């Protein structure tokens, strides 16, 4: 199995084997972060630009650390403070970065499809770090990596995603990735936060949380995006917590312990109680650690593929 894509745009277009290659590579990279010298020379001399059109701390920092542990140079561009404010288009920005001889663009953008658009127009590698409501592949990969570490395999697992499915790229990428690897995925949310025809992605839909959790191995709790004006779709965060918040009382009703995941940042007391978030079945911080290994694997694989394509064109 060899990785042949210069970009990582989403999990929808990947095969099961390609996803497994990323996970296996990530598991080899995980050890690097436990060393005294947390750095390998694999991508020495390569430059990575984190191009972020939306605020993000954890994803950007995670990519930055991953790149630095591979000996890349990293440049951060936050759209607010760049020539984007002067009206430069995404493709023009990309072409200028290419002219500066950088190797990889990690793109976070508020429009769905932005990473695909950029990747078609530049020769450098593009890694999607979240595009609108569409995909956030590295988040899903680190979720799946964490599940695989905990359960040994993905096939046959029951995973429930709870929260604002409609606006969640994390949910979509997880659904595509998990179903390809043979997990059963359920989604649970109030109707106003579920996109129509979500079942067509191969998931089971629940409106009642207790019912959704009954047979699940893991619950992936999405963040309520309070910065959006959710009042129009849900009365208040207190109401949401009552009906959809993950609490100890709710978990105690279940027959077995289930794994608790959350992509962060947490809204304590909105989608999850502190007791659960800090409890012994929570792997929320392990997800953060695993994010580094997964992103190192992706940076490494796309670079290799691009070099291969370049060499083949040469001969």
């Amino acid at each position, binding site marked *: 199995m060899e990785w042949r894509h210069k970009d990582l745009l989403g999990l929808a277009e990947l095969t099961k084997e390609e996803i497994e290659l990323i996970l296996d590579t990530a598991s080899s990279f995980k050890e*690097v972060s436990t060393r005294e010298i947390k750095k390998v020379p694999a991508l020495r001399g390569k430059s990575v630009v984190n191009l972020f059109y939306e605020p993000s701390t954890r994803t950007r920092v995670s990519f930055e650390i991953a790149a630095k542990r591979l000996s890349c140079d990293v440049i951060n561009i936050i759209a607010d403070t760049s020539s984007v404010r002067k009206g430069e288009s995404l493709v023009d920005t990309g072409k200028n970065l290419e002219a500066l001889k950088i190797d990889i663009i990690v793109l976070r953008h508020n429009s769905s499809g932005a990473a695909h658009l950029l990747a078609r127009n530049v020769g450098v590698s593009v890694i999607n770090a979240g595009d609108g409501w569409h995909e956030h592949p590295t988040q899903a990969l680190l979720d799946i990596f964490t599940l695989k570490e905990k359960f040994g395999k993905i096939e046959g697992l029951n995973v429930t995603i709870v929260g604002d499915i409609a606006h969640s790229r994390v949910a979509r990428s997880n659904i595509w990735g998990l179903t390809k690897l043979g997990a059963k995925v359920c989604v649970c949310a109030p109707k106003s936060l579920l996109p129509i025809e979500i079942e067509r992605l191969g998931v089971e839909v629940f409106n009642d949380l207790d019912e959704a959790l009954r047979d699940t191995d893991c619950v992936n709790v999405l963040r309520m995006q309070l910065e959006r004006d959710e009042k129009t779709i849900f009365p208040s965060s207190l109401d949401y917590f009552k009906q959809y918040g993950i609490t100890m009382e709710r978990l105690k009703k279940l027959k077995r312990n289930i794994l608790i995941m959350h992509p962060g940042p947490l809204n304590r007391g909105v989608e999850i109680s502190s007791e659960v978030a800090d409890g012994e079945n929570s792997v929320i911080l392990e997800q953060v650690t695993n994010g580094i290994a997964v992103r190192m694997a992706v940076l490494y694989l796309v670079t*290799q593929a691009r070099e291969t394509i370049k060499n083949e064109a040469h001969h």
Partner: protein
Amino acid sequence: MREKAKIMDKDSIRRVLMRIAHEILEKNKGTYNLCLMGIRTRGVYLAQRLVEEIKKIENKSVPVGILDITLYRDDLTLIAPHPVVHKTEIDFDINDKNIVLVDDVLYTGRTVRAALDAIIDFGRPKTIQLAVLVDRGHRELPIRADYVGKNIPTSSTETIEVRVEEVDGKDEVIIVDKNIS
């Protein structure tokens, strides 16, 4: 590709490893602070066998680590298909230890160069020594082995294939000619 000659069989490999185990113990005056480090893939199994031989002689276990040097190679962009990155597993402190690096074939020396860089990222050993089953010449770097199973001079169209039971189903060393099909 054609197999030209079998250079070593199961018994000769066993005898050679037994001799190298004795040489390692002689040079390091026993097993104190000694550890072995196998280079993936076949070096790992040779290192494990050396550990067994050492145990037979001294009745002491020495720690053995596994080194994957993929991330330290200088030719990553040139080789196809790309090797899959495997785990490096070193679960002991290497500071002030005498490390014997173990590989199947010593050729250009570039793998050993990468392995030296990888080891040094884990700490500062007292010494690093090199044991190889076969030295086939054609060095491109100033590197030599401390323990050599067999010197096999080769031409550049020939390659040496070391096969070990754990990976290939049998123990043998073969010369292969790349030019003859």
